[in-house]
């Protein structure tokens, strides 16, 4: 739904900035839309495809008027919108403690971003943005995931610290990291995260382990960030 205007508005050319087996990442104007296969990870900036085919890719893609176009042929049409934003009325400190304990029962998977970095984030979120942005391996580096988790949790709680961190991220993210990761940070700035992280924020049973198992390192860092954002 963050991508509502990009998909529902006028038809515009889309450029493939990255492609994987379960997702095609399209840049449209300043925005980014991930075309995700049905059982792929539902990123907050994703358009999830209902069928079983892999997401389309190519040079002639466009988005608009409710559809994804290949040339002048609609290859997928929006049949339903979802809102990835999370809003919490309150945070249970006990649940936050449990989350942090579960996260730190496992070691930090990316050596570039250690538990020291998590501690530094907890101490002063705004101050470590520069250090964390773009830090680590993968299309969504560990440092970005950590920031995104923290920011999303702060936004979901409508905590005052959300604006401080949000402003710092907005100012510094562009060019410092991949376009996808920047889009995910922007989503986190609206309290929007993948469903696995939303489930953790809503304290659903089993959610923490499912998030920790997500991706190669993303899950752990998102979860660590959520824990910091809930405790701040």
């Amino acid at each position, binding site marked *: *739904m963050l991508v*509502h205007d990009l998909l*529902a508005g006028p038809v515009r050319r889309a*450029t*493939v*900035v*990255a*492609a*994987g*087996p379960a997702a095609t*990442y399209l840049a449209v104007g300043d925005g980014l839309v991930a075309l995700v*296969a*049905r*059982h792929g990870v539902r990123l907050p900036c994703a358009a999830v495809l209902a069928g*079983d*085919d*892999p997401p389309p890719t190519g040079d002639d893609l466009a988005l608009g008027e*409710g559809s994804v176009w290949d040339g002048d042929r609609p290859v997928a*049409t*929006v*049949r*339903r*919108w*979802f*809102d990835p*934003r999370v*809003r*919490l*009325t309150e945070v249970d400190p006990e649940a936050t403690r449990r989350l942090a304990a579960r996260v730190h029962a496992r070691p930090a998977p990316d050596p*570039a971003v250690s538990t020291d970095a998590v501690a530094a984030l907890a101490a002063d979120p705004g101050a470590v943005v520069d250090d964390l942005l*773009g*830090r*680590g*391996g*993968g*299309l969504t*580096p560990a440092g970005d995931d950590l920031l995104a988790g923290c920011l999303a949790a702060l936004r979901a709680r409508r905590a005052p610290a959300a604006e401080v961190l949000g402003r710092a991220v907005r100012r510094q993210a562009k060019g410092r*990291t*991949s*376009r*996808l*990761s920047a889009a995910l940070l922007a989503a986190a700035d609206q309290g929007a995260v993948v469903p696995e992280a939303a489930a953790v924020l809503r304290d659903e049973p089993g959610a923490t382990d499912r998030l920790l198992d997500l991706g*190669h390192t993303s899950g752990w860092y998102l979860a660590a960030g959520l824990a910091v954002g809930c405790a701040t």
Partner: protein
Amino acid sequence: MSELVRVEQGRYHDSVTLMRASAAASAEPGVEAVIAAMATPLNQDLLREAGFPPPAAGPDDLVMAVRGVDEAAVDAALAAIERVLAERRRSSPAGAARVPPHTVEAAAAERTDAGVVLVSVPGPYAYVEAAAALRAGRHVMVFSDGVDLDAEVALKREGAARGRLVMGPDCGTVILGGVGLGFANVVVPGPVGLVAASGTGAQQLCGLLDGAGIGVRHVLGVGGRDLSAPVGGLSALAALEALDADPHVEVIAVVSKPPAPEVADALAVAAAACATPVVLAPVGPGCPTLTDAAAEVARTLGRPFPEPDTWGVGPVPRPGPLLGLFSGGTNCVEALALLEDRIGPVRSNVHPDPGRHIGPGDDPEGAPTLLDLGDDELTAGRPHPMIDPAPVAERLAAARGGVVLLDVVLGHGAHPDPASVLVPALAATGAAPVVTLVGTAGDPQGLDRQAQALTAAGAVVHRSLARAAGDAAGLLADSYRRRAE
């Protein structure tokens, strides 16, 4: 010694695939060093440490760096990398043939993440399936009608005891977080939650709000009989509480035919106790219209409510009676209330006053008549007119004069192109057609396309049934005036 560093901008692969590709390349004879990776700062460091010149690349770019004893070795390494990257895994096919679930319990055991069961078996069987759903710990939507009152009460009491919601019986529309079950329009999840004892009433409201750019997040159908005295609003009250607790819902609207007095009281009390503002929108004689309700929802949100969309110009008034052809029961009820207010007694096959009742096969004899073609009597053994508008088209084509007021309902479950069925009838009809088009911009039928097709065939089209009914009354008055002149 031969070396190559290739950069492919915007080409992405995940790190595991890239590691496999690197490993495959390293296995080629004569290969000394190979790194296939996205050019993140970390990987840039690795490339430098491996003695490769720094590539002009960013985190979104793929770098393949190879060093080998000669060019052939390097080529072989690159080819190996490409082979691995070319494997593109499709989603795995469905598992080997397994035993299909023959009961709700078996299905529930198979999918513990299926929180909702949709029951649409014939009425006499619905209670058992719905009870099974509740006992399996799931919420249940009962599309089926013809369920005994006792069964409905038993179901809702058991649901309440188990903390599960019973949506129905006779519930055709449910929307949960933007997902539509049954007949539902494509909505943008927004700040509105609906409690609906009327499916098409909820659909009209969704359409009106969509037209104003206001999204609806949930529609909790509670079944047409929920607000009667014996059922006491059990599901409506639970639904109200649930929506109130959802932090995303900023205003709740309750759509129904007028509830039994004691239930109306309970509803009012419950609404007052909600932290979220509640707009009560009963539909019937003396009640505000759904258009009014939509406006009030907008006002509660502090959002503007522009005049609802209309398409086309008014058709030429023709002398003759008023005929209403409705697929949505609440649309018929709302129109009935509005028109009786404007033009006096109107007959209907769903009129609460037995003196004004008319059967759908009876000859109206020139009196104003509104027919609910979706009524149970008419749909036994036939598809509902929302699915197949042919019965509407037949009667429309046969009208010799006057005004025909009809509704066209879009969305999931409805006919894929109702206009195509109605256009020939619009061409043939002797009456002035006024259409209420219930739908949203995202509906699969294409709201604008349907409106254009209908207006091209001579109808005037409104999102608002209140406006449409007003038009119809106006056309009648004009035709009387003309006749008098």
